[in-house]
């Protein structure tokens, strides 16, 4: 089934999926924390759009609540909180020297191929749209992990973690046509609590090693590497 034969909803979902994947890549290559947080907020906005679209086209009003929650939490509150923390800790002028940026990006591209490869058997049992959306969300999850591995700042790790959650959320919206409300509320508050806890951890890491660069944690080793 080619894309011209799909309905408009499917085309839009696929394009949004592609854009979500793109924002993941943008985050992966971003050395500045404030810009990283901004791209994260954009990804949240794309998710909100997807949710609202799903709510509209599946005629499923409780997804609107989920979209609003998403908008408030992931587009406004968490980016705002992270931004404030970054500015408070005076790390917003730092440019993280990403070692091997190009390698990381190409690694990201191969992760994307890998996630399609892994999910390809599913195509026998489901629609191609589902496969694509699932594969893209899996690759967003994997890219979030890669982001956490390749960046050294604790704030970037948190953003990577949150974008993993974004990937799962996207899969849930597209694949299940909306989870039960209880689950969504639970997840949303978990994310909120996680964000607050991370904020506290930032201060702890900072007071103990005087930086948010987690590579410095290696200094706690007895043996120097």
């Amino acid at each position: 089934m080619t894309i011209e034969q799909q309905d408009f909803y499917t085309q839009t979902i696929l394009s949004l999926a592609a854009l979500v994947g793109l924002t993941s890549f943008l985050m992966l290559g971003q050395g500045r924390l404030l810009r990283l947080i901004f791209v994260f907020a954009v990804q949240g906005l794309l998710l909100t759009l997807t949710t609202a679209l799903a709510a509209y086209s599946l005629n499923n009003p409780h997804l609107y609540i989920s979209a609003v929650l998403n908008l408030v939490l992931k587009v406004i509150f968490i980016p705002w909180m992270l931004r404030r923390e970054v500015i408070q800790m005076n790390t917003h002028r730092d440019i993280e020297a990403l070692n091997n940026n190009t390698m990381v990006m190409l690694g990201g591209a191969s992760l994307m191929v890998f996630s399609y490869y892994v999910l390809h058997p599913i195509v026998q049992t489901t629609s191609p749209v589902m496969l694509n959306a699932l594969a893209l969300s899996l690759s967003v999850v994997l890219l979030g992990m890669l982001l956490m591995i390749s960046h050294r700042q604790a704030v970037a790790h948190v953003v990577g973690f949150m974008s993993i959650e974004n990937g799962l959320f996207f899969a849930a919206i597209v694949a299940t046509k909306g989870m039960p409300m209880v689950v969504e509320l639970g997840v949303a508050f978990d994310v909120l609590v996680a964000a607050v806890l991370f904020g506290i951890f930032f201060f702890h890491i900072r007071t103990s090693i005087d930086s948010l660069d987690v590579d410095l944690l290696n200094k706690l080793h007895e043996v120097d590497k």
Partner: protein
Amino acid sequence: MNWLIAVIQTSLFAALAPLLAGWIKWCKCRLQNRKAPSLFQPYRDLIKLTNKQPVVAEQASWLFTIAPYIVFSATVLAASIVPLIAVDLPTSASADVIVMVGFFAFARFFLALAGLDIGTAFGGMGSSREMTISSLAEPAMLMAIFTLTMTASTTNLSVAISHVLNDGLVLRPSFVFALFALIIVAIAETGRVPVDNPATHLELTMIHEAMILEYSGRHLALIEWASQLKLMLYGVLIANIFFPWGIAETFSAKALGYGLLAIFGKLTVLAILLAVSETLLAKMRLFRVQEYLGFAYLLGVLGLLSYIILEASR
């Protein structure tokens, strides 16, 4: 008749290119709170340069004098391949998009040789930088264009554009990637901020300007005109591949008029976007350009991938 329209289209390309450059400059000046020169200033500059006597260095070989003509004619030939106001013209049927990239490479080769020819330090530096950047930009550009050609299953631009046009409004994920990749490549190839600054004559940062530093008079006019043409070419490519609506499919006067209006509108918007991005961004260090173009290549690959995975029939 078709050939006549093709010739008219190509001359429109050449005639409108300085206007586009003037419009971009106007937008940039307004955005930066400066008083803008007239929209027709690039034309006046070109005329002034043409009337001046060119000064050629003693050491210059024939290559130096012939290069501007080659660069300009190769760019005009490339422009004749790209559909501006109408598709299905004989010129665009005779050559495909790879030929267009070839023309660009040809022009760049001679410009780089001319930069080396005089033997000044700046010329050589500019040439080596230009070749470095283009060797990274070209694959990325081809990747972005291949995404289009795979969708239309042809490398002919005009056929591909009418294919996109006939499909109506289809949201293609692969085109999103290809669009971004092509925009990034276009900025690098036409020497705009953040890769190169067209307005600078600061020694250590210039790329394109360093190569043409020794040119004057009508030679300089031709090269300037060619680079304005190239900028417009990329603009038209982006506008007509990804937003082909409005382009004329028949050769009636009405359709052609609409085609002209449509491309005017699209280029106006694109130029405003370019001016805004040039005002917001600062020029990046030369050694960061490979990261930037690597990103464009990545986007191109992702475009191809998402075509194969998301869109191809299975």
